[in-house]
């Protein structure tokens, strides 16, 4: 089966290089999130794939068809790539139904397909409204419906939830994800919000300095990051200096297990939720003093100082919440990740 999107060695420079030989694959029906800090080239990639800009080098194939490459630049309207921009960008002069039907052939614009797609995004019956009569979340779902209506080969979403307030965001995210999957659409979603990237995606592609440094399932990117940069960018991380001896590593937290065989000085990545304060099951521990604490309700973060002066952060249930100055025992659960330093 041909890939929905295949990007190879894509290069683009404006004043400075933005994309430096980027590779990306999207399998049919997959939702891939591009995760990276602002300015890493995510949005540029979307614009090149959509055809709003042309590349300096490399190729883009959509559903097996070359749309961008040396001497080839298909105009946006012939790529069958739909976009959902930030803040939706609904046509303010058209009704919801006319927005959704915008990309359909003239005869079908008012037909059943529009109602069908509106139903898919959970907005059946709202076709007669004007965009400004909808809530922010509804507008965003109309934008998704408009993208899905013509049955595109690929849907591109550029930070589609950033304009929504935090309470609404998680819900709209889940609804959009469900709509994309129900339509069987292949999609690329750009975000700088790691929680969003991890919770929505089938595959997370971490972008740094114009390249994809790791593309894998969300849990894999989190538990087996490709390098120290990915580890610290995706999720919170405690980085400790350590000395590797085979499948174990000596750290200020004691001897910890690692997945791979390593030797010599390493950087050890420990997730805050791996650290257990005053464990009751015989987990090996070291002494620590609580330096500071932040309470979040469902859990809390403790900043702890080890005897050698190293500071680490532990995530604890909201019920275990010792005050600063308390002496505690600290253990580490599960394998840790280490990178030769």
């Amino acid at each position, binding site marked *: 089966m041909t890939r929905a999107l295949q990007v190879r060695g894509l290069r683009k420079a404006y004043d400075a290089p933005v994309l430096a030989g980027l590779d990306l694959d999207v399998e049919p029906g997959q939702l891939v999130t591009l995760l990276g800090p602002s300015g890493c080239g995510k949005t540029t990639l979307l614009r090149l794939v*959509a*055809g*709003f800009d042309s590349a300096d080098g490399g190729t883009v194939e959509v559903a097996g068809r070359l749309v961008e490459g040396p001497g080839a630049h298909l*105009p*946006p*309207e*012939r*790529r*069958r*790539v*739909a*976009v959902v*921009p*930030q*803040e939706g*960008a609904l*046509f*303010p*002069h058209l009704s919801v139904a006319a927005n959704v039907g*915008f*990309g359909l052939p003239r005869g079908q614009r008012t037909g059943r397909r529009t109602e069908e797609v509106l139903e898919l995004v959970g907005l059946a019956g709202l076709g007669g409204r004007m965009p400004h009569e909808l809530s922010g979340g509804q507008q965003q779902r109309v934008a998704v419906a*408009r*993208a899905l209506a*013509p049955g595109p080969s690929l849907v591109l979403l550029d930070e589609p939830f950033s304009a929504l307030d935090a309470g609404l965001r998680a819900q709209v995210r889940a609804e959009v994800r469900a709509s994309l999957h129900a339509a069987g659409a292949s999609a690329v979603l750009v975000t700088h919000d790691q929680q969003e990237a991890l919770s929505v995606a089938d595959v997370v592609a971490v972008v740094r300095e114009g390249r994809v440094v790791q593309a894998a399932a969300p849990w894999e990117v989190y538990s087996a990051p490709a390098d120290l940069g990915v580890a610290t960018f995706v999720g919170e991380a405690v980085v400790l200096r350590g000395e590797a001896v085979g499948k174990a590593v000596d750290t200020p937290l004691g001897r910890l297990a690692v997945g791979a065989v390593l030797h010599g000085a390493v950087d050890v990545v420990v997730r805050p939720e791996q650290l257990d304060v005053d464990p009751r099951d015989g987990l090996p521990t070291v002494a620590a003093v609580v330096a500071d604490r932040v309470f979040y309700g469902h859990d809390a973060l403790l900043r702890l100082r080890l005897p050698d002066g190293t500071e680490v952060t532990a995530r604890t249930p909201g019920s275990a919440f010792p005050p600063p100055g308390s002496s505690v025992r600290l253990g580490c659960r599960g394998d840790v990740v280490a990178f030769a330093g």
Partner: protein
Amino acid sequence: MLPAVATALLALAPLVYLVVRALEDGVGTAAGLLWRERTAWLLVRSLLLATAVTAACLVLGVALAWLTTRTRLPGRRAWVVVAALPLAVPTYVAAFAWLSFLPGLAGSRGVGAFVVLTTCCYPYVLLPVAAALRRADPAGEEVARSLGLTAWQAFRRVTLPQLRPALAAGGLLVALYVLSDFGAVSIMRFDAFTRVIYNSYSSAFDRTPAAVLGLLLVAVTLVLVWLEGRSRGRAGYSRVGQGGPRTAALVPLGRTAVPALALVGGVTAVSLGVPAAALVYWTARGASTSLDAGELLPAALTSLGVAALGALVTTLLAVPVGVLAARRGGRLPRLLERASYLGHALPGIVVALAVVFLSLRVVPALYQELPVLVLAYVVLFLPLAVGAVHASAAQSPPALEEVARSAGSSPAAVLRRVTLPLAAPGIGAGAVLVFLTVMKELPATLVLRPLGYDTLATRLWTETGVADYAAAAPYAALLVLLSAVPAWVLTTRTGERS
């Protein structure tokens, strides 16, 4: 792209041909005409009038702007509107009004022209300065006060410099307006450029002097535009830093409220009251003796007809230029837009001359026919329409057009289905503005109108010329009434949106 190029060429052609015509009898002849004492005096007279009117407008404009935006002037909100109204009075209507009461104002000393132009033009300074005062962050003045400056020092050292772009822009508008005005100087019989050019064109067999003088006037206006661009300098006038600016606290006037009221009330009473009184008085007198509805109606219909035609053609031609400039930066679109803006700096009488020469040479059959008149309107008022199209097309986010492209629409379909429908209200407002301006236009209409065509403006001009004020008044009154409708549409519509 192609229609935009065609429009820009159309806007440029008359001016190019004016140059050709002026030099037709040889560079020596042209230089000889320029190098005469009469020409030098003409230049001096025109510049003196422009300088005097501009200075008076700057003083009145700043004073009224400050009083209506920053002080507790009684009835402040109403004054804001009333003080800007003289903008709607055509100079030839004001000139007719003053002359009908004080015939002694006319003549070569220029008092009449000065009074009429000042009372009609000071809003060009008032409006941008008042806007700048409203925008200026009062925190700057407060900081200056806390550093030990008095209120007046703070105004002079902090606020006034911020007003500089507004003053320069407003002052330039006034100077350009005075140089290109035909109605006031011709009715007040002051020999400024436009009147001399018109007389030279209509009385002499040889039209080369008119062309040469027209070219000189264009040169003077271009120098003014260039000076204004330079005066802005490089200083940044926008606010630096974050946070919403507050509105300034209003200064209580105390005992000075009475003279302040007298100033604002006096200026508006003179600017609006004199024309209004003249219209009412002479119309009433005329009605009892010789009101001829049989002549009034055709003139009104002609005015409306040519204004509608002018607005339609100008707007249609403006769409490609405006959309192109708003959507695609780059050198050519910018150049095309600049070219279409040229009419802004050109006096109506010069454009009329240029169009006459061009039509006589290229399509003599159309000389003094409707298409030629419409062409003059296009050259003169294209900037208004292009500005409106550009602004409204620039307002909709480019993301909308990108989405439309991705949804399978070709660039032409995007224009038809997204860009134009979204810009339609703004383009409509531009068309109304052109309509309004064409209706009030005098010199080009006077020179280019087809035989037997009389608009309200040309009738008013003719009757005033023979001092038959009672006969002139109904045309003026009807013109003001008819102009009020589109003006009202414009203000209420823009009010709704803001």
